[in-house]
């Protein structure tokens, strides 16, 4: 096996991303969850930079820098401030049975790899082997959104899903055009602000950020 060092580096990053996705899936503490999210952003940014270096796609450096700025610094900071203001820093979530969720997650990973195999064969990028992992992390983040009962972890799940999509784009086609990426970055930022405002509103209306209270909104 003679895989170049950079490709090995990218594969390692992909493996780490998958690991972090599982870690997020099983993490009960909100604070740790945000830290994991920041770590995921860091690895994503690093792997994008490596891809940029390997393939000399210079716009990917910009993407990497953007990811670093937004997902490692700005968004975690906002989230930290939010949980401090909402005073839920040490909240522990009640969740479904974690081992069951992990098992479902494993099944999803198998599904994602199976799904990505034919696409990977067609793609001519050095990163093609990581497409399966990217899709797996998208699905795992989605699963995380479904299993969480509180608002903040759901938002973190949403942001992690965006990370997975970004990674999928990088590994399949060396990233989207810069304009699209800038647009998505702005969307995520604005979405975060709006959701932050919603947190306060939900808290005022229901005295809690537990989303099961919102079931009352249903019309009978």
């Amino acid at each position: 096996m003679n895989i170049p060092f950079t490709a090995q580096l990218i594969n390692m990053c992909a493996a780490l991303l998958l690991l972090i996705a599982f870690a997020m899936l099983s993490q009960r503490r909100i604070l740790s969850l945000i830290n994991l999210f920041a770590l995921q952003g860091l690895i994503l940014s690093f792997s994008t930079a490596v891809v940029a270096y390997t393939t000399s796609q210079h716009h990917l450096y910009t993407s990497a820098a953007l990811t670093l700025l937004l997902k490692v610094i700005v968004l975690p900071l906002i989230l930290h401030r939010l949980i401090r203001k909402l005073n839920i820093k040490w909240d522990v979530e009640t969740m479904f049975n974690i081992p069951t969720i992990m098992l479902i997650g494993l099944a999803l990973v198998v599904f994602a790899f199976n799904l990505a195999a034919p696409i990977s064969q067609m793609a001519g990028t050095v990163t093609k082997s990581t497409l399966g992992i990217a899709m797996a992390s998208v699905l795992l983040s989605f699963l995380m959104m479904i299993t969480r009962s509180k608002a903040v972890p759901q938002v973190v799940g949403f942001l992690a899903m965006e990370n997975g999509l970004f990674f999928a784009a990088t590994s399949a086609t060396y990233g989207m055009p810069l304009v699209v990426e800038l647009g998505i970055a702005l969307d995520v930022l604005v979405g975060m602000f709006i959701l932050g405002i919603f947190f306060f509103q939900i808290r005022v209306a229901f005295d809690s950020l537990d989303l099961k209270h919102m079931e009352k909104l249903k019309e009978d």
Partner: protein
Amino acid sequence: MFDQFGLLPIDVALGVVVAWLVLGIAGLLLQNTRIITQFIFPAGALCSLVLAAAGLAGLSETSVAILPLGLPDLPFHLRMDALSSFFLLLLGGASVGISLFSAGYFRSMADDALALLSLEYHVFMAAMALVFMADDAYMFMVAWESMALSSYLLVTTDHEQGEVRRAGFLYLLIAHVGAIAILMGFGVMQGGQGDYTFDSMRHTHLSTFWATVTFLLALFGFGAKAGVLPLHAWLPEAHPAAPSPVSAMMSGIMLKTAVYGILRVSFDLLDTQLWWWGVLALTLGLLTALFGVIFAAVQSDMKRLLAYSSIENIGIILVGIGLTLIFHAFHKDALAALALTATLYHALNHAFMKSLLFLGTGSVLHATGERQLGKLGGLIHKMPKLALLMLVGTLAIAGLPPLNGFVSEWLLLQAFLLSPGLPQPYLNMLVPLAAAALALAAALAGYVMVKFYGVIFLGQPRDEKIIEVHDIGIWERIGMLCMVVACIALGVFPTFIILQLDLVTEMLVHHALGGSALQHGWLMLTPIQAERASYGPLILLCIIVIGGLATSLVVKKFYHGRLRRGPAWDCGFPAQTARMQDTAEGFGQPIRQIFEWFMGVVRQMPTPFDLHPHFHSETHDLLWNIFYAPIKRVNEMVGSQVGKLQHGRIHVYLLYSFVTLLALLAFIQ
């Protein structure tokens, strides 16, 4: 007619459409009841007159236009051939009177409400004109839907009442179900070429199966608009709910758009006609006519009565279409032309006489605030002018000579009576039966109209508030007078009308009645041969007038001198009160008894010991339970099952998207 101005009829018609739209928008911007009633409605009536002239000119001259509007690469095609022109003539002619009447009728309405109504009203007329002119499926559907929506808004003018909102919803629902069928019909007709102009549909040859599918879809779709059984349910709800001029417009003109659609699809766009389509249309038409007239006989709300009478007349028109289809399929061109002439004639007649009656009920409603026949009566003393105008309308719709209703029904019966000799033995037996049923419907229509006129105008007032009412204003009178003049003219000069109708029959069934109808001069109408039957309305009118005058003179001369007034021999009745008159319910009682199995009658009979006896009877439409109630039940069941999907938990909703995503991913793999 417009040649000297260098204009084609279609240019004039389009100009009228634009003028109506401008008038509607101007009314909306001005928001002033006085200006709208004194200026905008009369101006709209003037435009109607111009449209009628354009329709008359267009009968003999086909013109086309392409509007560079609509979607890119899909311009609107317009065409004005004889069929379109005839219906534009109908629209223009009937709406003159309705618009003039509206100028008086709406004078006390609030500014903002009237501004909206005037916009919807003019858009409604413009949309109908465009339906008649459309020459591609796209334009047709746009105009058709604009017509449905604007008329829905007009129906729900009094939307504060829940009953009106329900009627409007039912109307909109059935209209849209019909529109879907029409759209599918066009889809079949273009035959996979992707070209939706009517011109390409004319040149597409469909197999018998697909042609039948198209015809059935068209019959269903247009039937929903026309109120053909069993899609009639909206009609008796929506017509009473709307303001009277709107009811007049819907019943008199809008129902004819459906007639136009059926004729356009079955004779113009489809190149083959099968005889059993005609049998289907004939049977449906007869059922509709009988159903309509029987239910009209037992109604006690005057506008509902007229609505059921509209169902009956649509049934008669459909009978005519069915007969035309049968004759045309067997290549009996002269008879097909006769049946089609009768059909078109009846459509034209109905536009005028039913509008007249609806306008009249509007005036009664305005003056008395009462729609229930049981509270009216004796209005001939309070509103003599209205009573005279309405008398003409009632006699016309009852099918009495020398008015117009007689001419068309007579022509249709002639077509039936001349029909032996069809190559199908069963059909030969069926046709006289159908003629008998049609005659029954016509006779019952007369009964209904006696009830309608007698209960409202004759006798004594059944309610105290009627004593205070005033007769109609000048605008109302002019509007109704236009209708009356049209009814009389259509009745007295049928040969001239038939000469014009010939241009339409020539186009649709390639044969015209003209030669034989006129062979004895314009005075006598002879559909086929003078030996078989002929009718001279003007002569009849003269005889009626002279005979009536002579009788009254004789009576005055010999009888009046011997009149003696003395105390009444009261026979145990010290006084005659209004409550002793025959009521609407009482008058309809025989029909209710005979056809009780046909309708659901709910009676509340007082016991003999009841000190305050109260009789109440209601008639229900059994077809509702047969056709509509099961659909409603299934719909509710499915709806409640789907409602279970809405769980209220965000996680469940997320799960839905997640599962969908996984399923789609697995699917594309």
